[in-house]
């Protein structure tokens, strides 16, 4: 436990330089990409003077270095600033929207892991070769189908044709509204999980300990669950962990299709309208989440496979 703690503290300390890098890069990117944020605030008909006044009000007239220092100062006080466009504190909007994106991402992840593992197992099992091939075909489709098309297809099928699920919206967090977007978001990852599980299981089938387990006369299910799957799951955790970040950011399309009021749409809006505080705040927030998730993934290895030691030196 002490080892784990030391590891966690070390990683959290390492977070700081990473985040400083993220902050600096996003800050500079804002000023490198074309497009003037004040132009997004004035509509189609305006005068130069208004642009200057707005620049002054938003602090965009100051030298870049000064803006950067002031920005860091605000960050140190956990102040992400106010949206240029809506005049609403960015942190408020992020806290409102993040839980929804998180719900979507976690549900999608759960679906991907549960169904992905099952499909992978079926594909590897070899008792029903046709079923196995069908599973592999499914995984191939899963990684190839564009999210956008899949989303619309599901809406068409479940909302319009079968009338069993609502086409879009948040519905105050009701489960019925969550199903379609979560499935849409999970599919490609589900397919990846299935493929990785399959190869892991096939590999494990050839291992000595599985042969031993079978030789002991254990039931096939026990062999699968206790010996095969447990070993095959390590790479799955890596994949899901690595994918989790992209669930959070990759939910942008899914959120748009299903009108899901999450963080993804917030960022896209911010980017389209050059709303600097929104982009900077949301990117920073995403970066922190991403790093934390990776940390958790690293820790979880130890629980699944005690041979993996955290912090380098084995005993």
């Amino acid at each position, binding site marked *: 436990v002490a080892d784990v703690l030391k590891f966690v503290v070390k990683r959290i300390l390492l977070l700081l330089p990473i985040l400083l890098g993220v902050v600096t890069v996003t800050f500079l990117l804002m000023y490198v990409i074309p497009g003037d944020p004040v132009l997004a605030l004035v509509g189609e008909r*305006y005068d130069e003077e208004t642009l200057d006044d707005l620049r002054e009000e938003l602090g965009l007239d100051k030298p870049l270095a000064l803006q950067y220092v002031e920005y860091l100062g605000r960050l140190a006080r956990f102040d992400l600033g106010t949206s240029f466009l809506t005049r609403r504190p960015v942190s408020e909007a992020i806290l409102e929207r993040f839980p929804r994106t998180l719900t979507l991402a976690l549900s999608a992840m759960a679906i991907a892991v549960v169904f992905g593992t099952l499909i992978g197992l079926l594909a590897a099992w070899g008792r029903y070769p046709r079923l196995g091939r069908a599973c592999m075909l499914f995984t191939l489709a899963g990684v190839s189908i564009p999210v956008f098309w899949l989303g619309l297809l599901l809406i068409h099928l479940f909302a319009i044709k079968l009338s069993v699920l609502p086409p879009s919206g948040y519905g105050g967090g009701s489960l019925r509204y969550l199903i379609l977007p979560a499935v849409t978001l999970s599919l490609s990852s589900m397919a990846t999980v299935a493929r990785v599980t399959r190869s892991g299981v096939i590999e494990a089938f050839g291992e000595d300990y599985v042969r031993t387990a079978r030789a002991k006369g254990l039931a096939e299910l026990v062999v699968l669950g206790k010996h095969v799957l447990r070993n095959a799951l390590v790479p799955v955790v890596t994949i899901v962990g690595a994918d989790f970040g992209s669930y959070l950011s990759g939910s942008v399309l899914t959120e748009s299709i299903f009108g899901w009021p999450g963080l993804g749409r917030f960022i896209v809006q911010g980017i389209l309208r050059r709303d600097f505080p929104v982009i900077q705040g949301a990117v920073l927030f995403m970066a922190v989440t991403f790093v934390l998730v990776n940390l958790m993934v690293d820790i979880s290895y130890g629980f699944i496979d005690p041979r993996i030691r955290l912090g380098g030196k084995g005993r």
Partner: protein
Amino acid sequence: MKRVSTALITCLSLMLQPSCSVVEESPYIRLALQTEPATLDPAYSIDYSSGMISSLVHSNLVRYTPEGKLAPDLARNWEISQDGRTYTFHLAPARFSCGRKVEALDVLFSFERLLDPETISPRWWVLGTLLGAGTFHESGERPLPGIETPDDSTVILRLERPASHFLGLLAMPAAGIVCRTDVSALGVGYGRSPCGSGPWRLAEWREAEEIVLVRNERFVGRKPASEGLSFRIIPETMTRIAEFEVGNLDLLEVPRAELDLWRSAGPPLLETEELRIVYIGLNNTRAPFDDVRVRRALNMAIDVETIIAHVLFGGAVKANGVIPTALRESPHPADLYPYDPGRAMELLAEAGYPNGFEMEIWQRENPEGGRILESVQAYLGRVGVGVKLVTREWSAFKQAIERGTPDAFYLDWFADYPDAENFLSPLFHSSNRGGGGNRSGYVNGSVDSLLDEAALCADTAERWELYRRVEETVYGDAPWIFLWFPARYEIVSPRLQGYRIPVIFNGQRFLDVSF
């Protein structure tokens, strides 16, 4: 194990039961917005959604009916002085949704606030013609000489010089009357909890989800026929269509690509020519576009009718001139630029470009625009003009055309208020070059003086004659490649009665729309 699966199946079947319908019953008129309003504060409402919803919540002195006619709003009636410089408005008794009585001082407050340099409203120009508005916008020193409030229910507005389109400006969202106690108390927060004297009141705003307006029971006019309006924010077109198909929306704007589908089946399609012109602006300050022969040649090289028929599915009218049909007192000018690639090549040769030239056309990211410009590119290629298409997203695109970077740009212009003036002064008066709206850098002294004359002209027929002459000149000078006036298509649910597409975007207040 078996029990678990039974429970699971039961759960699933309960959840998926068709009887728990996907249609959300609602006493409100259910509408969809593609983009969320940034604010409902009239001083900062610059986009379509903000302006439209802000106009439902706030009253102006005057407003437009769905048919595009000027009508009294807060002002019961008004008088215009002989010289056209003094407007006297008599206010009807009215209350804000918060309960306070609307006083002349609220009008004064709202107008001064719009012009105040502290406010930094991008729409201060809406009241820029008021006497002393320019100075006030610099200094913020009260009183503003252009406004006088002799008593609680009278507002006198004085203009720097007569402006025949002034009432149209007063009907714009920016000139909405705000509750002065609420604005003072809420500051920037006003944009999210506005208090106006319009027919509707903001009941709920769930960001990125839905905006709900309910009937403002304190509204003095005839109250809206329905209880409320719900605006769902649904960014994707296909999703909006799906929501309409399952019956969750009462109104849907039909994209042109889907026209045939909706024409053949289902409820009747509403159609109207928008107050909008689509064009390719040419950079008139730069060779070869400073030569009128080149500009005319480009107009004649493109078969606009064919593009309308095949790329826009017939959903537009070729623009001969610049003033949309609904704002005209006389027919459109005769087509000066029929498709004639032979003549176009002759003109190019006369101008010294027998072998054509290379040019860039800039556009904002937009799939339809992309298809249109690819056709344009092909047509221009046939007369020897090599076109490179440059796509930028909106804010970068806007920055580039403000700086005059591109040779040409694909753009459109929406009416702020339904008046021919709004399609001429901003777009072609030399004083409006750049951010004012004249982005092609067009300068013609006679156009300027005709427009100045029209602004002083109170007589409608005379004024129209001046506008007609401006249009004729501009059309002949061809500062743009004139494309079309697009049509707008909407479809309503069977239960919705009394809706019509408004001529101007904030003209439909849903007063007579009901189930």
